[in-house]
């Protein structure tokens, strides 16, 4: 039963994800919490690992969450689920490439989807950021700033700024994650 739920859930995620890997994070987060699969901290840990390993983040997340729920069969079901919608849709489009891109209804729908997806991703990022730097964020009482996390955020922001402006190099996600890991160890100890 879990296997079927994993397949269906990730099929749904694969079908409604636009805008690259990050586009699926709001949806994944919602589905994972709704099914009670992971807590927030574990989910963010998974995202961090999926960012720093090769391959599309969607596939990584599906494999990871599937494995956490039902081992190897679970990861297979989730991964096939997330890939299948793309696969089928692209096969259909490959047959009628030109007319698809120039179809005015396709264009119109996409113009509407773009701002929605952008807003969803930004809000998810903001939510996760606030959850990082504020203890008990979202609770009715007991919210307080987490100074150590704020320190890490400030150090990361500063490094990114120096790296891109002064050295004029792109600040890759892997570099950012390695640096943040080092900062985590420096702040919280070994």
């Amino acid at each position: 039963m879990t296997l079927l739920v994993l397949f269906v859930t990730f099929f749904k995620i694969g079908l409604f994800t636009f805008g690259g890997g990050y586009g699926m994070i709001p949806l994944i987060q919602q589905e994972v919490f709704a099914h009670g699969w992971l807590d927030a901290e574990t989910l963010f840990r998974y995202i961090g690992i999926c960012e720093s390993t090769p391959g599309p983040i969607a596939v990584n997340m599906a494999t990871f969450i599937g494995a956490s729920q039902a081992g190897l069969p679970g990861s297979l079901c989730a991964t096939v689920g997330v890939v299948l919608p793309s696969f089928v849709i692209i096969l259909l489009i490959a047959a009628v490439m030109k007319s698809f891109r120039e179809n005015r209804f396709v264009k119109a729908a996409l113009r509407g989807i773009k701002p929605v997806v952008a807003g969803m991703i930004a809000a998810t990022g903001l939510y996760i950021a606030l959850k990082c730097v504020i203890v008990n964020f979202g609770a009715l009482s007991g919210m307080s700033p987490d100074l150590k996390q704020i320190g890490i955020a400030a150090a990361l922001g500063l490094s990114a700024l120096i790296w891109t402006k002064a050295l004029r190099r792109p600040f890759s996600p892997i570099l950012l994650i390695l640096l943040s890991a080092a900062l985590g160890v420096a702040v919280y100890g070994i």
Partner: protein
Amino acid sequence: MRRRIVELFAAFFKIGLFTFGGGYAMISLIEDEVARRRGWIGEEELTEVFAVAESTPGPIAINCATYVGYRQAGLAGGVAATLGVVLPSFIIIYVISLFLDRFMALTVIANAFRGIQVAVAFLILRAGVRLIRRLPVSAVNIVACALAAAAVMAVNLLGWRFSTIWLIVCGAALGLALYGGGDRA
């Protein structure tokens, strides 16, 4: 034909293995491998493929693999290329998942991940901001974007039981209603 299928699998396996940082990072590797080195597809057609990949759901890497594979060797090619691009991720992540719990029991790793959490938030926020900055400035875009952001916040904070898939469906409906009749806007 069989050789071509093996080649497709191998090329996309390599692409899957060496791309970090999600779909957009993959684009240059795919260009290099598939268009320049192997000449499987013209650069112009590949640009079209990227545009289609962006406008269809699902990871860009998968979309490209399926398309190029299908064009080269039909359905079997599409399957081989897609499997190729997915397999490295699958194997690596599955192996990590086996050891994660033992790994996380080490304090130093747990502390490193408290730092990584900040980086994850930063990356997602940055991706969102970049998408917003690429949007043409118009009242419709601003309102749609703000409403979607507010809805996601409400779902997160207030525990609304409302699937964000509906936001995408509403966006598509809005686009069709506003722009579907022609190029007035």
